[in-house]
């Protein structure tokens, strides 16, 4: 199954747990602010457990400073049901593999935006947040895995992740203590 990921402000989409609460019955106007564009940038994911954090790290790494990141996740069939035009347009992150998963929803009318927002609000699978501390770790892992170079990051992010990157590379280079047999697959 393919999922669509759109970066949002989570508090605009948050709902009350009580199914009879106003926010659960009616779509509030706030989420519209995250979708009100004629060209909407989205990302596709086939396996959320494997790909989502990589996408979030790549997206957050492009920013000026470390911050939390919110996204809404919904099924790709929502786009088909609304007959929206999807254009292949590589993303602009520092992670080339992530860039290939980027799409633009193009030529959206006011009605398209409204229908999409309503449908996603009601049928979304998840609202996910990674706080700034999680984002720091995700970017550090991405740098350590050489998905992109640390020099490409903004100075503020570079400073913030430096210790995490050093810790990661140190733990990788540590030699196992004598007497312990670490078996490896040949």
């Amino acid at each position: 199954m393919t999922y669509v990921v759109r970066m949002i402000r989570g508090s605009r989409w948050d709902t009350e747990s009580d199914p009879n609460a106003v926010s659960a019955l009616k779509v509030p106007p706030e989420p519209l602010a995250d979708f009100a564009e004629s060209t909407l940038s989205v990302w596709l994911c086939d396996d959320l457990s494997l790909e989502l954090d990589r996408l979030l790290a790549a997206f957050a790494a492009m920013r000026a400073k470390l911050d939390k990141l919110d996204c809404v996740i919904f099924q790709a069939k929502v786009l088909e049901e609304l007959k929206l035009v999807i254009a292949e347009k590589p993303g602009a992150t520092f992670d080339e593999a992530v860039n290939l998963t980027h799409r633009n929803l193009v030529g959206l009318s006011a009605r398209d935006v409204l229908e999409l927002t309503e449908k996603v609000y009601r049928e979304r699978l998840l609202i996910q947040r990674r706080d700034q501390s999680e984002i720091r770790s995700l970017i550090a892992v991405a740098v350590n895995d050489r998905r992109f170079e640390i020099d490409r990051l903004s100075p503020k992010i570079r400073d913030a992740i430096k210790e995490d990157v050093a810790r990661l590379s140190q733990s990788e280079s540590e030699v196992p203590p004598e007497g312990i047999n670490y078996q490896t697959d040949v």
Partner: protein
Amino acid sequence: MSSSPKLLDEKAVADSLERLAQDDELLVEAGERVWEVFREFVATKFVDHPDRLDLPLLIPTALLTAVLKVISPHGEFPIQPNQFWQIIDRCDISRTASASNAQMVVAELEAIWATATGESFEDGFDSEFSVMLRRFATIHGPIAMSLISEFVAREKCDAEVAAQALRCMGELDDSETRELRRQLLENALENPSHIIRDGALIGLSWLNDPRSIKPLEEAAQHEKYDLLRTELQKLILRLKGRDR
């Protein structure tokens, strides 16, 4: 042969006069707007105020507020942001503000708050509002904290602006106001708006102070919004881990 005196170019004169008239109209419009804001300010602070503030003391503040609002980067007649800040700097309002210049500090915060109207905030990037607010908080210290708290609690306050203000207070690197900022953010966890409560949570996650665990736990217990409750619980766990 002497040259004949140059005749006035009638068209150029007409154009100049028209330009002057347009400038004049603009000036009148700006003046009217300042006057409008001035009257609003006096009406709120003086006529409606239960303690009847001292009017002569209020007039300079009201004038300053009116002008700052109109010329602020998002006002009707904006000037360059750096020029705006030069003016603010010249007001020379220090952390040891007296009661009279405290009113000027209010005026300054009102002008900053006005810049947020219509500004779209993007995670991971500083907004003009957040830069100005952090600067304001650093200059005015404790008085700024109490004013920001008042502004956030206003009934008609724009929730997104208030949430942004709270996030900024969490991010601020200023040891002198750390305790006050923690209190401000913890109190805002009880705000009726879930968007403002979310701003308080994000601010507290920046402060990363284990002393916030108890208020966070209380907030998590009665939080009705799903994402907010999950994030409150996540922060509690993180702070508890740090506390060990």
